[in-house]
């Protein structure tokens, strides 16, 4: 059976502080400022690279705001074999880029199998928490 998250202190589990997006926002703004400076200095195309940091962090802080952590006890499985298989499948498929289509297909098939296994594992886990 999956283990429950250990309780903190001697009482009901409550959520941690809800915020945390501040530093992400600040950093994203710094990136936009530095990128704008570069664009003004004359390198417009490289300046676009600064969006690679700003955008993900803005999205993440927005998501964190909109769906804050609930603090409910999280289900914690001990082991996940499909994850390992999926990783090996990923590597195999990637190596197919040089070895040939045959290896890519083997990796992809393994990957699909592992993904299905993983999804079933996670669904079963969620069902146990709910039930």
């Amino acid at each position, binding site marked *: 059976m999956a283990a429950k998250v250990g309780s903190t202190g*001697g009482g009901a589990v409550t959520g*941690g502080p809800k915020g945390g997006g501040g*530093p992400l926002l600040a950093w994203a703004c710094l990136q936009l400022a*530095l990128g704008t400076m570069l664009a003004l200095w004359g390198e417009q195309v490289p300046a676009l*690279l600064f969006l690679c*940091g700003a955008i993900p962090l803005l999205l993440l802080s927005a998501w964190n705001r909109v769906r804050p952590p609930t603090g409910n006890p999280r289900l*914690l499985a*001990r082991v996940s074999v499909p994850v*390992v298989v999926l990783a090996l499948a990923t*590597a195999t498929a990637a190596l197919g880029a040089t070895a040939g289509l045959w290896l890519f297909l083997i990796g992809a098939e393994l990957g699909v199998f592992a993904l299905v296994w993983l999804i079933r594992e996670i669904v079963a886990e969620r069902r146990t928490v709910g039930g």
Partner: protein
Amino acid sequence: MAGLASLDHKATAAKVAIAATFFFLLSGLLALTMRAELAQPGLQLVSTHTYDELFTMHGSGMIYLFLTPAALGLGLYLVPLQIGASQIAGPRLALYGFWVYLCGGLAMYSGFLTNNGAGDAAWTGTIPLSNSSGTPGVGMDLWVIGVALATLGSLLIAITILLTILRLRAPGMTMLRMPVFSWTMLATTFMVVASFPVLIVAMGLLLAERHLGGVFTGATGSIAYQHLFWFYGHPVVYVMFFPFVGAVGESIATFSRKRFFGYRALVLSLLLFTSLSMAVWGHHMFITGAVKNQYYSLTSTLLALPAGIEYLDLIGTMVGGSLVFRAPMLFALGFVLQFLIGGLTGIVVASPPLDYHVNGSYFIVAHFHYTLFAGSLFGLMAGLHFWFPKMTGAMLRERLAKASFWVLVAGANLTFFPMFFLGYDGMPRRVADYEPRLGDLNLLSSIGAGVIAIGVVMVLVNIVVSLRRREPAGNDPWGEGQTLEWWTTSPPPATNFTSLPEITSYAPLLDLRQAAAAESASDLSRHIWRQRSEARGVER
């Protein structure tokens, strides 16, 4: 089977540490081979093509497969503990990341078994040298795929650390009560999220260029590749720096028996430092004549501001403290003084007129080995010696640790300091041979490399001996732990904590000890007051 697929972040981090150590030793052997070749002018041991593979795989191994994963692995282990969480957010993602990274590393090194050998276009893989006409063969393909996989693995681990900090802090652990090390890890994850995907894309494009052609054509193409590569290639060196600054900060605070000085200034400078670090990549391209040198020179020189504030904070933590020179403290001090040399020479090469001379020479090799080896690796050693008892429940042998420190200091400086002069005097990097007049300094440097090897072996022996004949470590073996990881057992249980203290600052255990001391001090003074007033009463 359960061990290989364990979802405990501590187990995953242990796997990362073992893999990273393995790649460190492999890449270190390559370095020893290079230094053996360079000990004397002339080609004695290897051909120039083999030498190309050596420096490529040494640099690639150390950066993609050792120091970056080690930095992130340290965070993977410690961040949940420091912020009072029972697990990492996304343990499956972290486990997946580890295995993908391991496969990537093995793929890269397996290039040595192919006809044309391993990748040999330097750790940067610059076009056109790295395309199919510049470097034909499967070995280079394996390098490209391996780099992409290893980087993907590191990226995913960093994401789990970021999510953990965002969502799993214990009650009372606001952002401004997070410990110093966790703050450095947070800043590190920003850089990873912003830059690592760009490298993965660059590797994908490079692979396409090698197999299909037409991706990076002409001068614009090769410059475009450099932009994509260095946009990652600069922040990654800070990914390999900040976690270790955090480890050093924690060690210094603990062994000065003071809380870390200038915490808010540190937070601000971390945000500025890591953000600026994303804006300096063009300084690797000063001599191409294809970038706005002045912009990158300005941003690169500006790095001195947050760096200086961090140094003020590290030293300020020591001032007024009560210093104890245990092994982690020694390594931390080594970091502070040696990284300084690397950092100052970094400001030197931020100036294009100076870079025009020393870029691509051994001066640069000295600069980045001072920051990465004499700096970051010493910081890693500080963290290792500091947290080993927590992670394993066993103390490291103190005298052996201190001895290994001194050997490593001697080795690092003997190896890398002469390189400043070699580079200034005209020795290019990435060459297997050089002018005879440079022989003496090269010999000195090669002897230093041997000394480093001895120091590394001493550390490894210490680890093995300490694990086999254990000196048990309690929850707080240093007696002065300030942060939450020292609250729980050594090693921590699967869910990290069975209880948590009240969190009132970034050094909660120090707060507790001081409150207890104040309490017993006030108890004591109440007791004395009562005694005296009773005595007075008797007199009256």
